[in-house]
């Protein structure tokens, strides 16, 4: 079932075009990742989905009564606002205690209910945001750079949790990320964005597409293969560490070059 559909949709920030002629749709149960360089319109695309940004032309249609769970890129809680995790979960829609506890458990932070929001670490805050987003069993879960500030291990673990959530709730997931390798291995479909949709398809297809390589360089193709390999063996605890370490080194290198490459092209 199609949950959300964009047809020939363009968005402007003032005079500047942010997105042009985007066609996109998402079906129940899919995990779609949006990748793209900084300023490519990734966050704008998510903000259009939640209705915070209106398209300047084209259309966006949501299924009637669509329940959206949204995990923002970051959330600053002013220290003057006393707010514990349990109270935060019920904003704006109240939920029963059983539901709140279940959501925290599913997000992997069952013991944080009474903690103040302003005192959480980055990783804890992300999981609490995830718990709030899945509290009312969304049909569509949106994550905007949700693993920013987490280390490699933390974000890999976070994405595994997203897969579990998708499996348990049967919701569709749209993620925006910089971390191509981790994210792509967890996706059914990848959209490569740079003001418009450059290319899309299964992760392997996109990783080898010339448009994608023009943006990110060819290094990530290799890294992706390594990561899929690592991911396949995720439960093999004996070898897990070595694999992870090996791919870390190669990959970090690759990303650095990619960025240089990108700037070279852009300037």
């Amino acid at each position, binding site marked *: 079932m199609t949950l959300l559909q964009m047809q020939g949709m363009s968005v402007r920030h003032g005079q500047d075009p942010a997105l042009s002629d985007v066609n996109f749709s998402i079906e129940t149960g899919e995990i779609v990742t949006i990748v793209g360089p900084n300023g490519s319109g990734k966050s704008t695309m998510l903000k259009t989905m939640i209705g915070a940004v209106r398209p300047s032309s084209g259309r966006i249609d949501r299924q009637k009564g669509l329940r959206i769970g949204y995990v923002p890129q970051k959330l600053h809680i002013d220290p003057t606002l006393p707010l*514990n995790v349990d109270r935060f979960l019920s904003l704006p829609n109240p939920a029963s205690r059983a539901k709140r506890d279940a959501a925290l458990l599913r997000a992997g932070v069952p013991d944080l209910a009474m903690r103040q929001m302003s005192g959480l670490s980055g990783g804890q805050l992300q999981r609490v945001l995830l718990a709030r987003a899945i509290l009312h069993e969304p049909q569509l879960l949106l994550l905007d750079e949700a693993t920013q500030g987490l280390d490699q291990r933390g974000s890999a673990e976070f994405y595994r949790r997203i897969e579990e959530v998708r499996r348990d709730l049967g919701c569709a997931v749209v993620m925006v990320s910089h971390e191509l390798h981790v994210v792509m291995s967890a996706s059914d479909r990848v959209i490569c964005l740079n003001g418009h949709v450059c290319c899309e398809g299964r992760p392997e297809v996109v990783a080898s597409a010339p448009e994608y390589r023009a943006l990110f360089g060819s290094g990530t193709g290799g890294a992706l293969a390594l990561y899929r390999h690592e991911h396949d063996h995720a439960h093999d605890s004996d070898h897990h560490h070595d694999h992870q370490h090996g791919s870390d080194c190669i990959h970090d290198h690759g990303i650095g070059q990619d960025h240089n490459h990108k700037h070279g092209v852009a300037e």
Partner: protein
Amino acid sequence: MSLLDDFLVRAVLAGIGVALAAAPLGCFVVWRRMAYFGDATAHASILGVALALAFSVSPLIGALVVALVMASCVTALSGRGFAVDTMLGVLAHSSLAFGLVAVSLLDGVRIDLMSYLFGDILAVGRDDLLVIWGGAAAVIGLMVWRWQALLTATLSDELAWAAGFNPKREQMVLTLALALVVAVAIKVVGVLLIAAMLIIPAAAARPLSHTPERMAAIAALVGAGAVIGGMQLALTLDSPTGPTIVCCAALLFAASAGLALVRGRDS
């Protein structure tokens, strides 16, 4: 109703009415860092009083309209490339200056300027009391009705959008509530000290609270306590009532801040 014949009883009731309405609104002013915004709106209302006297309408209506216009202007201008604190500084003080000049230009109307600047709570009549409690009830009703949405929008615009409501509308709710509180509080504490009644009780309540609701409730208690204590003190010392009330609130804040220091942590 004979109790209301006593001017002291009327004064205390008027003060408590304002304190109860100012408490939840004051919390939002603190959480959203709108202190200067409250000041600007309050100061502008003196211009409203002058205009109302010139056109022979109730000063309350004049203050309400100008406060609303001012608050709307600030809301509309903020986030459009102006440095907000500079702009508010300009608006707050210039509107006060224009108001004072306008009052001095009024021919044939002799008004006691001091009573508008610092309030004249002992002169509150039955009609004033009705207006103050009517306004306070409207503000409290508005706050209770929109409470969950206001809190969500205070945390993040995007969380509000994703939950299906427009955070700009919640901003307008606060703006309207602020104009109402300013209009009904002029008689009690005067335009110069209205912001104090918003901010000081909320700030005093912060160290004693672990949820937003508790903070609003304690702020209401602090505000009401300051009114009762300030009235008694003013009678004993023969000091101006409005400023004495604010002094009492400040002392309560100092006690609460001291308590927080002694405990060495936020609760």
